[in-house]
């Protein structure tokens, strides 16, 4: 059960983290 939950969180977490990373990457330009 715990493994299944871990996979579920990874499935939704990876795209979300990718989106956050891309946004932060762009946001840094504001302070350069």
């Amino acid at each position, binding site marked *: *059960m*715990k493994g*299944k*939950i871990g996979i*579920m*969180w990874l*499935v*939704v977490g990876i*795209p*979300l983290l*990718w*989106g*956050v990373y*891309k*946004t*932060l990457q*762009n*946001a*840094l*330009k*504001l*302070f350069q």
Partner: protein
Amino acid sequence: MTSGFFSRESTVAPPGFNRFQVPPAALAVHLCIGQVYAFSTFNLPLTKLIGITQSAPGDWNLKEVGWIFSIAILFLGSSAALFGRWVERVGPRLSMFVSALCFGGGFMVSAIGIHIHQLWLVYLGYGVLGGCGLGVGYISPVSTLIKWFPDRPGMATGMAIMGFGGGALVAAPLSVLLMKHFATPKSAGVMETFVTMGAMYFIFMMIGVFSVRVTPPDWKPEGWAPSSQPKGLITSANVAVDVAWKTPQFWLLWMVLCMNVTAGIGVLSQASPMIQEMFSGQITAITAASFVGLLSLFNMGGRFVWATASDYIGRRNTYMIFFVLGIALYASVPTLGHSGSRALFTAAFCIILSMYGGGFATIPAYLRDVFGTFQVGAIHGRLLTAWSVAGVLGPVLVNYIRQAQIDSGVPKAQAYSVTMYIMCGLLFIGFLSNLSMRAVNPKYHFKGDTRAASDGGGH
């Protein structure tokens, strides 16, 4: 009633089920439908479908294309209000599936519209069909999450609604990547991107459909005992959806949401030109886009942080912070703009946008406190009409007042000052509405068996 795989009965969790499997199921849906916030990435490419590199005669213009988003938001609010009771009755699995069909299907119908260059098909596809997918998908996991996390409803719904904010962060770079991948000298790649995204979103939302579970009857978290006595605004009773919206509390909360969203959405819709005009010569269009991205990040983060905080400090207090701090920050914006401090200006708007997101994410738990869990999803759906109103009111206020200021000779850098003070006024109305909140009069409480009413749809 539905039977088989999609029925509410077949989604009842087995013994030993871990409730932390439900938030990712809800996130799978909200991460997809949150794409709507990034729809503007398609605006310019949709105006160059014939000319490819630039608009040609016969191409759609920006104003026409802008209606796609507006129709989608209008149908989001309407469908959430109309189908809320149905969502409560059939349960989260079937409603998530219908949402996936509508949202994914909306992309497909729009792709046909783009292919044959018929704008009405895009309005119908993404706007109407996709908009219904947005509305049904938005409310479908809310009451399920509240029932799984009666001890932390703010955190649970905050997680899901955070996904809606995060969906734009994923969709914006994804759309750009896909259009770049599919672009050829003869095509901007928009149609192919729509087909791919429609299929991807449908599959991703199906993860939520397969994994969502509802609570067994009378389930409660281990070691947690519901309070039998009402505590402040928190009721131990239930109010049915058709009765709820006849109570003053519903309309006070409607105003709370509408005012909070109007202030935030007005800024969000004009964030890019606003920072460029207020810091004229210092901020380019690219830097302004970074500013908008940062605001989206805080919009997303605020959904989780503020909704979770509301479990500890109370729902009314959380909104009090939104309104009091919001008024202080909006009032300080003109001064911060004149001072030339980009960092302070950005920080003020990041906090404002975190409270905008927080307002969306905290409202389901507020509704649960006031009206109970019985039909909280349907009540939430009806309350979302405040979002539709705010979606029109906010941008219109910011745009029209800015234009009126410029027309009367005010320099562009100062054209937003009056708007900011008007936003303070709106937030003050929200503050008063929140301050007026009292527990629902017991005469409105549901007297029957809530379980029988939910199962039989007898309402």
